[in-house]
């Protein structure tokens, strides 16, 4: 009888393993489909002066999303051309708000700016992209990507037809940018690159791209202006640009296990909300945008699956017959289950004001009342007046 049970168990065990094995094979297929192993982000704000607050807020919003979704500071090159948080005209120092009513402070206390102030120049930007920096440049100021890196490049500022203005004194043209990307491709510095630009006539900047695996989004077409979202009366300037505002709203719903793809990103900020027509370019991209996850560029999703099985990777991955149903379903953990999703999306920092502890208040006022009654209960009040 015992041997019968043992045989049953054994058979059941083999079936389970086969089921698991084919599941693993299936998922192994998905595992290696995207082709990248690390993520980088280059976020650039190119304009200075207090009235360009919104460009810094744009960049910091994207920085915040990218960091929240997992890209570490060592893989983010953040370039801000001016310091808005500590600007003398900022009525709320040490903050940069991205939403009126000061709901979201994107500056926080762990922002690492790699290039600041006058270091944000066209030359530095191009040197970062191509990797041609002097040997003394520290690691935090370098884009150390390889041929398995997915890079997100976000530019914002003032632009025109075919150029983007840096620091009010120089400009980068779309031809230069396209050539820089070609250099990156030749030097195998990226696997796939997503280029987002939020400026006036932004679509002109991606017109000249000719390197493979580039996907580009812009906030407005040639001949259109990108508009800012809303002024804040307390701070006195416009806080965000429309496109990045809606992009931020879209990104707040993304968590590292989201399955949203690029087609949803292209729908962000339609003309009714943005006034300008956002554009995108996917012809140079080898994969279908519908199969590209948002987290492929905006997050740093490490694909980790725990398995006890060996997977034969030399054979082509085939779809096996689905296993016998019933039996015992071993508990499978998927990636999303392990994340506290509700805490990762819609992160709003809790503004906690300090209050004195209740015990202290109680103690203090008890003492004051005691002293009061001691002096005025015993003595007559007419001695005072």
């Amino acid at each position, binding site marked *: 009888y015992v041997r019968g049970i043992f045989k049953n168990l054994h058979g059941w065990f083999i079936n389970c393993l086969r089921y698991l094995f084919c599941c693993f094979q299936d998922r192994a297929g998905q595992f290696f489909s995207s082709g990248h192993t690390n993520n980088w982000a280059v976020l650039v704000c190119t304009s200075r002066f207090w009235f360009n607050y919104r460009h810094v807020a744009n960049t910091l919003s994207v920085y915040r999303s990218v960091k929240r979704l997992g890209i570490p500071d060592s893989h983010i090159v953040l370039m801000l051309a001016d310091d808005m948080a500590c600007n003398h005209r900022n009525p709320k120092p040490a903050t940069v708000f991205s939403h009126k009513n000061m709901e979201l402070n994107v500056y926080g206390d762990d922002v690492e700016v790699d290039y600041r102030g006058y270091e944000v120049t066209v030359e530095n930007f191009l040197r970062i992209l191509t990797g041609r920096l002097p040997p003394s440049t520290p690691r935090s100021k370098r884009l150390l990507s390889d041929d398995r890196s997915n890079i997100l490049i976000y530019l914002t500022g003032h632009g025109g037809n075919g150029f983007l203005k840096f620091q009010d004194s120089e400009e980068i043209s779309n031809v230069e940018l396209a050539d820089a990307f070609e250099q990156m491709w030749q030097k195998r510095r990226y696997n796939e690159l997503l280029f987002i630009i939020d400026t006036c006539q932004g679509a002109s900047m991606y017109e000249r791209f000719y390197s493979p695996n580039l996907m580009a989004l812009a906030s407005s077409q040639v001949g259109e202006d990108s508009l800012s979202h809303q002024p804040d009366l307390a701070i006195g300037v416009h806080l965000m640009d429309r496109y990045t505002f809606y992009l931020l709203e879209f990104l707040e719903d993304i968590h590292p296990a989201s399955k949203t793809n690029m087609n949803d990103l292209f729908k962000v900020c339609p003309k009714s909300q943005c006034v300008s027509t956002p554009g995108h370019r996917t012809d140079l991209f080898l994969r279908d945008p519908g199969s590209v996850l948002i987290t492929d560029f905006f997050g740093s999703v490490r694909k980790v699956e725990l398995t006890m099985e060996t997977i034969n990777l030399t054979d082509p991955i085939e779809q096996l017959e689905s296993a016998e149903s019933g039996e015992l379903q071993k508990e499978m953990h998927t990636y999303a289950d392990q994340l506290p999703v509700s805490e990762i999306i819609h992160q709003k920092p809790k503004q906690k004001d300090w209050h*004195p502890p209740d015990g*202290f208040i109680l103690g203090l006022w008890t003492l004051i009342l005691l002293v009061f009654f001691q*002096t005025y209960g015993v003595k007559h009040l007419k001695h005072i007046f």
Partner: protein
Amino acid sequence: MAAPLTLLLLVAVTVRAALFRSSLSELISERVEVVSPLTAWKRVIEGLALLDLGVSPYSGDVFHETPLTIYLFHFLVDYAEVTFMVSVAGSSVVVTYLILFQFRKQKFALEADRYPLDCLELIRSPKEMYYIPLKVAMFYLLNPFTILSCVAKSTCGLNNAIIALFILSTIKGNVLLSAIFLSLATYQSIYPLTLCAPALLYLMQRQYIPVNFRRASFWWFIVQYAFMYLGSLFVIICLSFFLLGSWDYLPSVYGFILSVPDLTPNIGLFWYFFAEMFEHFRLFFLCVFQINVFFYTIPLSIKLKEHPVFLIFMQLAVISIFKSYPTVGDISLYMAFLPVWSHLHRFLRNIFLVSCVLLACSALFPVLWHLWIYAGSANSNFYYAITLLFNVAQILLVSDYFYAFLRREHHLTYGLYLKRKDGSEATLVLK
């Protein structure tokens, strides 16, 4: 008395409100003569902002106020101007009333019999004394130093208010309140500790306990008072611990006052010395300078044991001159008491010199600061010279009043027109 006082208060409040709204308020709140690292309003706001960010305000060298001040300003930070005006007005009212009560207590007729006949002109008549409380209020409210200190929102105004309340409760004879306010004043800055002695003397005088070392009642009273004082100090310190849950504030507040790490120039004597002091001698000179504040208590209280109110005045003056971070707000407190001794005017010898020097120094402070810091054509010696001169003038003022007081006492005992044995006019020499 109430109507002129109200009028005075209205005028004072108007002047301060006008200055608060003008552009001068920011200029004044940055002047080093008016604010010190202990009392600056900017540091209070910084400390409260640090608290809102979840950081202890005592980390770093920014905030040196006591936790009870944190508690007070946590709720009043938006109404700061009103708070300071109320504290200044309150302290002036308190001081007025305390002078009033002090005078009502004085039994004029009884005293007249004790003194030789020709001294009658030395004794104050009630008619003269009638306007003195008002003059005291005026001296405090309309003193440019007080106005500057209030407009700069320096917490010195609060300290002065507590000291004024302490003096009021002492003069009213309320031992418990006096001990409590004195412990509050000591808790705010350590130096009012020396006011223990005059308070004890006054309260003992009021309760007819003779000041004699051999009497048991003397020691018993001292024990009682010390118990109340130390007990309330202990309670306040423990309560401050419970506000923030840590003892951080002790080195930040008291360690800061006693060890003087911040050498920003002010109108005191410490900064220049310690800026050029070798580290080797720093502790020694620190002890010397700090003992200097406490040192005058015992000799003065021995000499002035019959006159504790004058002793309070002297003690306040000594504290304001020799404390580690004095500001003009401290000076205005003891200057407010000057009209109380207006009957000493005939014996003051240096009043012209002192007033000229004080006025000139007050005018020269900003000039030499500008020359040193902004124009670069002077250096710290210039500013310290004026500081020294200012303090010398204050010391001269205080010692002059002391001399006048002693001389009046002498005349009250021996008669106004002194004659030598052969009948010629004698002169009095201070040795």
